[in-house]
């Protein structure tokens, strides 16, 4: 089960277990080095990115927005964590030659064809709805899924059930139709 397959990455059990260790090490490191316990998360960074971008054109509007004020529009620990994911994935994929410039993913292509425009529209609209939902639910599969479940938070179990349950229904409706 934990055997490393060179052709197709690492066993997901092994890579996942290592993320578990990373999550614990990260909690320990933020507590001792920063004096506050930070758990892995990603979606708040998108609020900060939106605030930083909006601030370049409408600084007063951002300063007066309750949600931006509450979320603190700064490049903080989590913002750098999310940025770091890009570089980690880039290094890993270049090193094992799994880096691919993919225009349209295979499952999408089978249902909607090779149009980049359609894929762009789907990804954009899906992104708007998903992030709106993640901010309402106060977390995504990182904050609720990983960090919340590890802490045995009741909210995480409900959130993950909703994420996946609705995801299954919508995916079947969208990709299974002929």
């Amino acid at each position, binding site marked *: 089960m934990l055997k490393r397959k060179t052709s197709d*990455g*690492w066993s*997901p*059990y092994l*890579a*996942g277990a290592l*993320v*578990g*260790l990373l999550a*614990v090490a990260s*909690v320990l490191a933020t*507590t001792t080095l*920063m004096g506050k316990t930070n758990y892995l998360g*990603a*979606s708040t960074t998108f609020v900060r*990115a939106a605030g930083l971008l*909006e601030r370049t054109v409408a600084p007063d509007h951002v300063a007066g*927005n309750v*949600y*931006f004020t509450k979320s603190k529009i700064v490049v*903080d*620990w989590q913002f*750098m964590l*999310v940025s*770091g*994911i*890009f*570089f*980690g*994935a880039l290094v890993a*994929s270049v090193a094992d030659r799994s880096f691919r410039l993919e*225009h*349209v*993913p295979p*499952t*999408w292509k089978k249902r909607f064809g090779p149009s980049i425009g359609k894929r762009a529209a789907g*990804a*954009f*609209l899906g992104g*708007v*709805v*998903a*992030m*709106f*939902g*993640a901010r309402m*639910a*106060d977390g*995504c*599969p990182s904050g609720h899924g*990983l960090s919340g479940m590890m*802490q045995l938070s009741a*909210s995480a179990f*409900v*959130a993950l059930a*909703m994420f*996946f349950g*609705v*995801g299954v229904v919508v995916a079947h409706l969208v*990709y299974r139709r002929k």
Partner: protein
Amino acid sequence: MNSEQWLGLLTGVLFGFLLQKGRVLRFDKQVGAMLLKDMTIFKFMLSAILVGMVGINLLVDLGIITLSHKPLNVGAIVVGGALFGAGWAIMGFCPGTSIGALGEGRWHALFAIVGMIAGAALYAELFPWMQSTVLAWKDLGKLDLPQVTGLGKWVLIPLFWVGCLGLFAWFEKKNL
């Protein structure tokens, strides 16, 4: 960059490396799980949770860290969770994996990232209205599973392990 930002960056690089090695960043892996055909992302995520759950609760018992539960605000979690699930199915990435997918060359993730930034901006605009509606329906506060079930965490954690290991055995048997 300050030390907090460096620490975040280092953690993120390792996180992204492992997400890529586990092959969970891809649209087809994420949608494959939602189509119940490929459970790679669950093998990965549940393995992380199993290990992290033990480590984090040990650190709590040693008095080194404190937990930070997100409140169980029922309307927000149910409606927000449903919206997330629907968007996730179409987008094929979650917030963290979209950034990693871009890193491994799946550049259409860029449209998802721009969409998510727009979704966050929209939420910021509508937040006052959310506060008086969905967020105000029923907030059960910071509940944890031991409080809900009445079982101790060192009873629940082994139960969770047994359940997940059983699930893994089933995934392997069914070749999911």
